[in-house]
Structure formats: structure tokens, C-alpha cells
């Protein structure tokens, strides 16, 4: 079975539509979304409507959660004062635009989805605000996959796609309790982390959307990069009253504001 996995659409409808066309061309059997349907982009309701209309199973992203619960991020969310102010501006705008039905839909999205030995989540199994960066310590990375009870963990949030294979190994964990020390042994089979990139807010220096196709039978992964009419999104950003700098940044494949500062940082949210 061929599965298309997409994430971080960020209210960019032309990018989502182009990705859906590409998925159709590639004859995928199922589509999963890892959330961040809204935030920064100019089409929050259109994107949520499309996901609902196509009944695409989706997890809740950090932006989806923030729109429901209000901003409550830890320091990993914003690398600078300027980014924070822009993030808050985008949050406020999206908060005003989103319809009650779509807000309710976002509120009900699960944090994780499972299919056989696959797990789908936005950030990590612990938090949809946590970045699993490719440089993350191997032990921590393996812990995240084990915590998901999966062999393959699909995530997004970093906006840069990658595939990381964690080789099988023997783990030894020593626990200190009072004066005693207990030791536990774990063995782990080969595990994979697949980051599917971002449909609507690329961070790889080009405006193109990225997503992943995964073949369950062969375990092959294709990272897809799809061109779309980003100028249409840029025009809508300006026409709908979002900061024009968002359009400039999108057209250059730069993140709008959020960025993981440090692979070793553990999100405290």
C-alpha cells in the first residue's frame, strides 16, 4: 500500500492543491496529515475545509492546538523577538478568521495516529511542539520511536524533510533508586524516523512544497518536492492583511518565524 504523508500546510491552499494533484498522479492508496493545517498563511478555512471534505486523517499540529487553546509555547517556538512578534501577529489574524466549526474540528484532532507498525505525529510522541531534528542524539531519537510503539515514526514540524534509520541495538539503562541501582536491558529492531517536510511553509530555500510517499510493502520512501503557484499565495497574504514580509519569505523558501534553535533542546511545553 502506498501512503502519502503531508504536514505543515500552514493555510497555503495552492500548495495543498498541488500536492493533492501530485498524490493522485502517483496513485497513492491513502493520505495522512500531520497537522499544522493553519498559521501564517492566508487560507486557514479553505485548507481545513479541504482536509474535512477529503476526510484525510490528521493529527493536531502545534499551530492547530494554539488556535484552540491560545499561545502557550516554550522558548523553542521562537528564535528571536522579531519572530515572536510576527508569530503572535499571525496567531491573532488566524484566530479572527477561523470559523467555529473549523476551530472545533482542530480541537478534536488526535495527537497521534497509528496504522500497523507506523505512527503519525506532528512533532514528537511527547509534544506537538517538540522538534525531532536529524542531529538529535540517537538514544533520544530511538526513545521517541519506542514511545510511539512503532517501527516507523512519521513527523513534521521542522519543515525540512529527512529520513533517519536507527540500526538495531542493545540498550542498557541503569536506574538509581535510593541506594540501589537496577539495570534494564532492551533490544531494538531497526527503526526509522521520516520527516515529511512542509507543504505550505518550506524552509529549504525554495518555495516548493514537500511531502513523502511511503510504500508499506517495499519500505521505500520518496521525498517529493512539488512546484506550485506560490505567487498566488503571496498575493493573498498581502490582500488579506497579513504582513507582506511573510510573502517575501515564502517566495524564498524561508521559514516565516519559528525555527528549532538546538537539537538537544527538549520542549518544556
Amino acid at each position, binding site marked *: 500500500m502506498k501512503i502519502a504523508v503531508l504536514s505543515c500546510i500552514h493555510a497555503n491552499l495552492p500548495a495543498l492543491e498541488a500536492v493533492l494533484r501530485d498524490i493522485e498522479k502517483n496513485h497513492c492508496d491513502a493520505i495522512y496529515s500531520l497537522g499544522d493545517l493553519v498559521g501564517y498563511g492566508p487560507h486557514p478555512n479553505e485548507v481545513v475545509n479541504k482536509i474535512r471534505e477529503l476526510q484525510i486523517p490528521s493529527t493536531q499540529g502545534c499551530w492547530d492546538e494554539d488556535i484552540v487553546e491560545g499561545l502557550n509555547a516554550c522558548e523553542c517556538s521562537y528564535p528571536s523577538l522579531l*519572530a515572536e512578534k510576527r508569530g503572535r501577529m499571525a496567531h491573532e489574524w488566524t484566530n479572527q478568521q477561523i470559523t467555529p466549526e473549523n476551530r472545533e474540528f482542530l480541537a478534536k484532532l488526535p495527537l497521534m495516529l497509528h496504522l500497523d507498525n507506523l505512527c503519525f505525529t506532528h512533532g514528537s510522541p511527547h509534544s506537538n511542539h517538540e522538534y525531532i531534528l536529524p542531529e538529535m542524539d540517537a538514544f533520544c531519537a530511538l526513545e521517541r520511536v519506542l514511545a510511539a510503539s512503532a517501527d516507523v515514526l512519521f513527523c513534521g514540524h521542522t519543515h525540512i524533510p529527512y529520513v533517519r534509520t536507527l540500526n538495531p541495538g542493545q540498550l542498557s539503562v541503569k536506574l538509581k533508586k535510593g541506594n540501589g541501582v537496577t539495570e534494564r536491558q532492551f533490544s531494538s529492531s531497526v527503526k526509522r524516523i521520516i520527516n515529511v517536510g512542509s507543504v505550505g511553509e518550506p524552509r529549504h530555500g525554495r518555495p516548493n512544497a514537500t511531502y513523502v510517499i511511503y510504500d508499506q510493502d517495499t519500505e521505500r520512501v520518496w521525498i517529493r518536492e512539488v512546484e506550485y503557484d506560490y505567487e498566488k499565495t503571496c498575493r493573498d497574504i498581502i490582500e488579506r492583511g497579513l504582513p507582506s514580509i511573510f510573502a517575501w*519569505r515564502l517566495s524564498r523558501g524561508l521559514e516565516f518565524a519559528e525555527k528549532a534553535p538546538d537539537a538537544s533542546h527538549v520542549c518544556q511545553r
Partner: protein
Amino acid sequence: MIIAVLGNYGVGKTHWIRREIAQLPDKNAVVYLSPKTDKFPLDATILKSEFPDISIQQTASIEKLKDAGQNTTVYLEIPPYLEWKSVEEVLQKLQSKKVVLQYKGEESPWIAAADEVIVFDREFNLDPFDPLEIHRGLLTGEVLDYPSLETFWQELTGGAYGEILRVKGIFNVFTGECIYGEYLYPDFNPDFLSLNFPLCLQGRPTNFSGIEIIGKNLDKQTIADTLSEFCLSDEAIAYYQQQIRDNSQQEEEG
């Protein structure tokens, strides 16, 4: 001796003066003056940070300059936007040596008057930036969030707020440092140089800071608004300064 340094935007007048001063044995015998920049002494501040002993003059009469030129080396950096005929008259009265810096292949308006010509090994066409605009933002007293400055610098020099030919800026940042950044089209330079001034760890800094942007179709309002987004409040400045003082104390005790 009086040396007038002339040349177009970004051709390296201040850098040339810097190299010349570095070779002089007695920095006390150096005077620097750049006419009509007294309210925005960006280049003078950079030179003063590297050579604290030089004398910076804001304004001076022709007689005073001539007197200074008897015993010291006076560098006159002439901004390219000054009207050449009036400048030429003054330079003749001063009997100064005229050094012209120019890009390769450039038809410099000052070349006929030059005593020495230095050609920058690079071709450069200023026509795409016509009509040139100059935008200066005074930031004295402000302390900036450094990661935001990096983002703004990338956007500014990447063309987010207009077509940029040249940017120079002196900024006070939350570490207490005063830093300098420069850009000349099309070479992106993400590095800032820490200027040789004492760290500001109490109150707001009083040294000059500001940004000079030369380009075309500059969105001056958005530039100003964006800069103001990451100027730190008194409380934030005090917080960072306290942290730096605490860290220094711990290092001294350790």
C-alpha cells in the same frame, strides 16, 4: 598633510583610510573629518573604535584645517552626494592631495582632479539603482535583540524592503557589545564585527548607533517599523545586563 578621499558608494573610502592610519606610527597625529556627517558619524565611530587616539573633527574652518595639516595627517572623507563644484573649491583652498577610489571601468566625476587614483578590482554598475535614495536611522540609546537583527539583516540585504546597494550599521546589542555590519551588493555578509568599546552594563548606551541604507525604492516606513519591533525595553536591558554582571562575577570568583 591634508588628504581628501573621494569615490562612489561602497568603493572603500573608509577602509582605505583605515589601512593608511594603521601604517602611521603616531595615531595622535591623525585627524579625520567627513563633511556633513556630524549628525550621523558612522564612519568616524568605526575609525575611533579601532584607533582611539585619532582626533575626530565634526566641522572645521579652512584655516583651522590648514593649520592642522602642518603637523598632522588630516583625512577628509568626502561623501559622494556632496556637490562637487563647491567641494573642489574648498579642496583647492586647502591644497589637499586628492585620492580618488573608483570601480574598474567607472567614469568617476572626480577623476580629472585626482592626484592619485586607486582602482577597486571590481566592475560595478550603479545604473540599476538610479534614482538612489539614502535612508538613515538613528539608533543611539537603543539596544537590539541580536537574533532579530540577524533576521532583519538577511531580509534587508536580500531585498525585502527595497533594492539595496549599500548598508552600514552600528548597533548596540543585548550582550552589552557595540557591533558593526556592512553590505555591498551583491555580497551577503552575515558577520558583525564587535567594536572596541567598553561593554555597556548599566543603563542605555550613549555611543552613536545607527543604520545607513543606500538603494532604490526603499520602504522606509517598514524598515523603521521592523527595527522598532526588536528594540529592547528598559526592563529587558536591565535583565540582560544583570545576567552579564552575574556571569562575570561568577567567572572572577571561580
